[in-house]
């Protein structure tokens, strides 16, 4: 039986896409991951998100006022809160409050408004903010908590707030006592001391594929990302080539030398790879615009991330990889311009 749909005559107007609706949908897609993060690592992440959002809106409002732009329109488009959310998701849950302040200053003022505001920024603002605080305050940016089920000390909300406000853990605890190495750190330091990856993976912080807890957070991020794909908010090229290049190259390295290279799925499910593939590298402003360009862009981010994890000075490299490929994006777009229909290439 043939189904009939009520269709009016042409022309058909597609539903309007606004910046506000796109940003809001990305934020919704991130929420399951945020909840999972709070489930595994405690309420710190929620406090960081709120702090970063507050600072982001503050800087956004002051920049708009200085530039004499309409406040209501740009503050209501949720681009600043999304930047803040992506930034806060990269922070250790107990980072002091001024980390968010500095990060958001660089993200909103330097990376976004000095380059001309929304739609004109060369670099992904959230990643600029994150990289600035990462290389400036390594001591605070490496203070990661172990998952709650392994932790000897589970902070209450009050303790979380006081740690973020003062920059010291409560009750005279030392940072070293409550923080631990992340899965990527563990693999890195074990390989550096001559251990096999399979030995390093015996540590309790590892789960089935990635880190305990981390892999579930990555799953929820991926679910939200798939929803965004289905909603056509992001295109498939960047996530597919980014994760694909990591899996393929990771597989090659793993088969060649399984002792010092983690399995490819371990790479995918640890660090910020899934978050980066669906939410950060897919930024429509600072990434590539052409479909073929996006393939190259995603692969580039994946390859650089893998290279930094393997040889770099930092355990994870998604943020650096995204910024480096942001620099390349205009050039890639230039060489991958789609052919105009009916004209020679």
């Amino acid at each position, binding site marked *: 039986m043939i189904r009939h749909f009520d269709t009016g005559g042409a022309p058909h107007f597609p539903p309007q896409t606004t910046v506000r609706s796109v940003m809001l949908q990305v934020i919704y897609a991130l929420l399951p991951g945020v909840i999972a993060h709070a489930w595994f690592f405690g309420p710190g992440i929620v406090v960081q998100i709120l702090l970063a959002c507050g600072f982001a809106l503050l800087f956004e409002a002051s920049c708009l006022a200085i530039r004499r732009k309409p406040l209501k329109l740009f503050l209501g488009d949720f681009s600043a809160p999304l930047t803040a959310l992506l930034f806060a998701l990269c922070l250790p849950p107990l980072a002091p409050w001024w980390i968010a302040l500095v990060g958001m200053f660089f993200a909103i003022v*330097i990376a976004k408004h000095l380059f001309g505001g929304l739609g004109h920024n060369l670099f992904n603002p959230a990643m600029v903010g994150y990289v600035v605080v990462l290389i400036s305050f390594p001591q605070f940016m490496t203070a990661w908590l172990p998952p709650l089920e392994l932790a000897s000390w589970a902070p209450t909300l009050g303790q979380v707030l006081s740690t973020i406000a003062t920059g010291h853990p409560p009750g005279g605890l030392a940072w070293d006592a409550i923080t631990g190495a992340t899965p990527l750190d563990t693999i890195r330091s074990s390989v550096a001391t001559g251990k096999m990856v399979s030995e390093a993976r015996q540590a309790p912080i590892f789960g089935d594929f990635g880190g305990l807890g981390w892999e579930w957070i990555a799953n929820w991020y991926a679910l939200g990302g798939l929803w965004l794909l289905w909603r056509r908010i992001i295109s498939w090229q960047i996530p597919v080539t980014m994760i694909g290049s990591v899996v393929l190259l990771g597989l090659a390295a793993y088969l060649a030398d399984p002792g010092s290279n983690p399995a490819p799925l371990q790479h995918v499910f640890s660090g910020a790879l899934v978050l980066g593939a669906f939410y950060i590298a897919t930024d429509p402003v600072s990434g590539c615009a052409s479909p073929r360009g996006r393939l190259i862009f995603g692969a580039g981010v994946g390859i650089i991330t893998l290279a930094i994890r393997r040889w770099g000075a930092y355990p994870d490299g998604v943020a650096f990889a995204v910024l480096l490929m942001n620099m390349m994006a205009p050039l890639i777009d230039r060489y991958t311009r789609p052919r105009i229909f009916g004209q020679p290439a």
Partner: protein
Amino acid sequence: MKPRQIVIDGLWRQNTGLVILLGLCPLLAVTGTAINGIGLGLATTLTLVCSNVAVSLSRCLLRPEIRIPAYVLIIASVVTTIQLLMQAWFHDLYRVLGIFIPLIVTNCAIIGRAEAFASRNPPLPSALDGLATGLGFCLALVALGAFREVVGHGTLFSQAQLLFGDFGELLQLTLIPDYPGFLLAMLPPGAFIALGLLMAARNWLNSKAAQLSRADRSAVQPAVERTA
């Protein structure tokens, strides 16, 4: 060219550090602190004055085909002399600035002024030009150094004793006690960002000044029209 014009050009309008962007390598590399900036800035200024005078004096003797090698020789001898002087009198500062003292030779600003100004002008204006250009470069170095030092360490004029001896101990300021430090400002990317911000500040001042002078003129003009 009038002396006033030369001074304004060197210090502000054609500032080597902030407008022409010559000599970026030392500008970005040594400006971790204000004192390093002053040290290298003064050394560069001295080099510029000496090399400008020497080039200007020899301008009628040199054939144009070989002028560039001759300038390089002159500048290299001046820099070598200054390097030896600094090694003798400011040994600690010399060790801090390190390779950047001999590298003054390669500072394009110096050969630029030799070619653009000293080879066409008499010695006295050339000396003034060297002084103004050098001080302008020094200004950029100090501004950049002070900015990076305050943001990066929360101090100002630290290690001033390298340059001013015992008096320098008094100059050192700790602006923000218990400052955790901002590593980015000390790293190369911080130097680039700070230089960009300084250039933006200079452009902003310039456009403000232009606006003011335009406002002055437009305020005067209607009055003239009305009386006419």
